[in-house]
């Protein structure tokens, strides 16, 4: 006879399924993190704990330069995306006509759904045609175009949720249009702007294809550097860098969560 269970309860079997799924998801990263503390330069067992590779990473690894370039580039892209994206979102929610809104949204969606391989190559064609070619400016513009949509969508979602009467109230109390934006609207959408900026930063930092097609030959961002090194196989200092990056990502996610992940526009991030 089968035992009666609470119909809503999460059974041990279900927890196991979830645990297996998570293990599958994290196994590769966890292995890399573990190996970054392993003394063997070829990733072989037995495990011997060391911080040697972190020293190598900072002392004489070719990885720091590309990492630094990627950080600077992504920060610039994210800051620009924050400004342009917020302006675009305000336009979209408060000013756009129906046709304008559809066109703007459609173009933003295209920027993040057309495979980046195709978009990156098409951008290269245009950059070549207007004389920019492969250049830092081209990468900057390309990365900005594919990270801008995240800011616009996240900020627009938040703007739409703001009661327009708040702005009306400020106006009736004597605040002009600019003062109303600065004192009422901006503080309310600030968490969304920050979330959007963080996501834009991550997208710009991680995107490989746009960088691959638009980077000047010889210029190496971190993804480009990893791409050239990956065939070499095992890289203990890359393990160390990966560990640091994953740790930073975790911090970023906690930060996003504090900012209200509901606004972050990540799929399924509305529990």
């Amino acid at each position: 006879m089968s035992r009666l269970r609470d119909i809503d309860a999460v059974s041990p079997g279900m927890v196991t399924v979830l645990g297996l799924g998570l293990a599958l998801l994290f196994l590769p990263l966890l292995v890399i993190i573990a190996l970054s503390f392993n003394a063997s330069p070829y990733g072989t067992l037995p495990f011997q704990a060391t911080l040697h590779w972190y020293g190598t990473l900072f002392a004489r690894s070719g990885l720091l330069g590309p990492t630094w370039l990627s950080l600077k580039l992504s920060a610039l892209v994210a800051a620009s995306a924050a400004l342009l994206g917020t302006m675009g979102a305000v336009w979209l929610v408060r000013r756009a006509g129906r046709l304008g809104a559809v066109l703007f949204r459609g173009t933003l969606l295209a920027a993040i759904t057309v495979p980046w391989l195709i978009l990156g190559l098409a951008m290269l064609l245009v950059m070549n045609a207007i004389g920019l070619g492969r250049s830092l400016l081209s990468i900057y513009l390309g990365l900005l175009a594919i990270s801008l949509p995240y800011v616009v969508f996240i900020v627009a979602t938040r703007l739409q949720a703001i009661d327009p009467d708040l702005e009306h109230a400020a106006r009736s109390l004597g605040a002009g249009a600019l003062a109303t934006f600065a004192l009422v609207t901006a503080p309310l959408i600030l968490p969304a702007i920050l979330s959007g900026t963080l996501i834009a930063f991550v997208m710009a930092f991680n995107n490989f294809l746009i960088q691959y097609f638009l980077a000047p030959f010889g210029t190496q961002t971190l993804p480009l550097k990893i791409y050239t090194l990956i065939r070499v196989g095992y890289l203990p200092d890359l393990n160390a860098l990966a560990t640091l990056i994953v740790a930073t990502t975790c911090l970023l996610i906690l930060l996003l969560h504090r900012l209200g992940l509901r606004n972050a526009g990540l799929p399924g991030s509305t529990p």
Partner: protein
Amino acid sequence: MASRALRARLTGILLLLPAGLLLAVMVLIPLAVLVWFSFAPEGADAPLSLDSYARLFATPLYFHLAMKTMLTAGLAALLTAALGWAPAWVLSRLAPRARTATLLAIIVPYLTSYLLLIYSVFVILGPGSPVMVTLRLLGLAAPGASILYTQAATVVMLVYENLPVMVFVLFSGMQRIDATLLAAAGSLGATRRARLRHIVLPMAAPSLVSGLIIVFVPMGGAFVEPAILGGPNGLLLGNVIADQMTRADDPSFGSVLSLLLLLATLAIVALLAGLRPALHRLTSRWSDHVAPA
């Protein structure tokens, strides 16, 4: 009053201008140029012609490649859904705190550079890697064996990369299935299987289709995965497009192939979107039977 309206219009234009200009130069014009170049095999200044298309239709190889690419991406998308379904369902049944914590954890690989993910899979699948060593010690793999440089490695990588997204999308649909619905179905005599088929499946079907579409599109445009993991016979359409555009310096034919990839992807997406009502019919057939004729 007129100046007020004029100023409002000006403000609107100024707000949109920077973003609009950027999107025009970096998204709309490039996509238009792609179409234009596909008709300009002799370069931008020469008269337009259909030569590049003629070349495409004269070479069955490219259609085979497109087919192979779509099949690989389709297989990977289905595997992703199969692997993501159960964890997403459990996630949707968890208490809010545990659910949020798990979601946050799943975002980690989603926000980690996918080149690092590729590298990590590369390492754990390599012949001397801990995973392969463990498998060998368990007698499950031959010494020196690895699936690296095979089509299978590409599929594994694509699935791994897109699993978090799939779980998010499935979860967001499943969380709307209220526990009281299942309880109600149970009280009406539905077994676990019947509840799955008549409640969970129809209600989660739209997000399943969305999930398949969302992961399929980037999979179809895969470039790095086959280039690094796929081996000599594992190249997909994306690799050939990049090759035509850069190394072979034939942007016209590259554009034709890009459009082929876009169209093929769109066709599959349309097919999947069309699947939604069919899926709905399939799962609701039972209720059609009891409805009065």
